[in-house]
């Protein structure tokens, strides 16, 4: 029997049978989403709880326990055992050699170049080399072409969606901007 027939069959269940099924608790979804200007009562209650709850911890769900983030997948045996039982040098250690970069004020590893400054200096030096003629860009021989001619000779390329996405180059990993250095963030203050 096909699926459509099955579904069709279910519609033909008489009303008396439906009434026998256990009723689901009614939940007023419409009151939250559709009446947006009027704030929901429960949200108001929650706000009050968070703001002034007389020294008790805020936002209690499930009879006083805070629901924590749950792992998405079971940790594999290897991962689990590496974490718990391998010698210390194989485990991941926190970085303890973090200092302030004197040139930009962000964090950096001591004895290592600050990558934030390095990127700036590298682009600057590349521009300087280009100014001094050490880097020569390939010149386009047809820069003074008439716009009509250009359109005829080089008609625009049609790019598909995936090609456009490739040209955005989001697949190239980019270094994040480091945090500003603050002594309070260090575990061992120097």
């Amino acid at each position: 029997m096909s699926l459509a027939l099955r579904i069709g069959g279910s519609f033909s269940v008489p009303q008396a049978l439906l009434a026998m099924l256990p009723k689901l608790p009614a939940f007023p979804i419409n009151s939250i989403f559709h009446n947006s200007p009027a704030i929901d009562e429960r949200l108001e209650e929650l706000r009050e709880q968070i703001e002034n709850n007389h020294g008790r911890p805020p936002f209690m769900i499930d009879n006083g326990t805070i629901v924590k983030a749950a792992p998405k997948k079971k940790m594999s045996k290897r991962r689990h055992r590496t974490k718990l039982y391998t010698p210390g040098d194989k485990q991941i250690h926190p970085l303890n050699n973090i200092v302030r970069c004197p040139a930009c004020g962000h964090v950096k590893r001591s004895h290592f170049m600050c990558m934030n400054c390095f990127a700036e200096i590298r682009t600057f030096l590349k521009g300087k080399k280009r100014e001094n003629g050490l880097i020569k860009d390939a010149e386009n021989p047809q820069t003074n072409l008439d716009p009509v001619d250009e359109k005829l000779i080089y008609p625009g390329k049609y790019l598909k969606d995936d090609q456009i996405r490739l040209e955005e180059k989001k697949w190239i990993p980019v270094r994040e901007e480091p945090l500003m250095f603050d002594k309070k963030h260090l575990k061992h203050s120097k």
Partner: protein
Amino acid sequence: MPSLQKFHANVARHIKLMDKNLCANLIRHENIITTRAKAKRAQSKIEKFLADAIRNNKELADKDFEYRLENNDALNFLQPPDRKEVGSKIINELAQRYPGRSSGFTRIIKLEPRLGEDKAPMSVLELVDSDYEIKFWYTAKIVARLELQNIPVDDLTKHNVHKLTKLRNDGEESFRNAVETAKLEFFKFNPETGSFNDPEIEKNLQNKPNMAYHEGPLVGTLLKSKKFGTTPRPTRETVEIPKSPFLS
């Protein structure tokens, strides 16, 4: 850090060529970014090559350019296609840049690991005293920042500036120019109005260093031993030696 294999025959030949290519490209571009193993390995070869080439060039100082290029035996280290281009740069530029040096032509700067699959530790290999030296511009940026913040320069930066400008041609002057350029380039400073074109940079400049090293109690303690309390050496006194009776 992984070490490059050296006992396999093919790899040995490959590594020799890699050193030669790194050497030629370093001299061509003044600085290159490679993995740390390659940089460390090539550095000693490049140092030896440059020392030999510059020493040989000094011996042939009275000969003309063509003769020097032909008869400088150290240039045989390079691969034949690179010999003329790189050799002429050594004779024309590097020999003038390093008149008193016999070693210490290159520097390795550690970088963060590469952003990619292999996370290889990277480093910069650069020629010292060049216009495109990264450490020179980094130090210039530090001094520029401190000057914009009206903070006196600390001992470590002073020491670094001294090392960078000591053997450079017009060292002090070129460093001063670099600091002024760094103010414009890296901090978008407008010298006419005395303000910054970027509000974010102005906010960034409020982050100040540990002032104890700049104008506090820790000034002048950098080069002193922390372990042993030392007293400064007394100044030399002039001693008058009495005249010898044996000399008439």
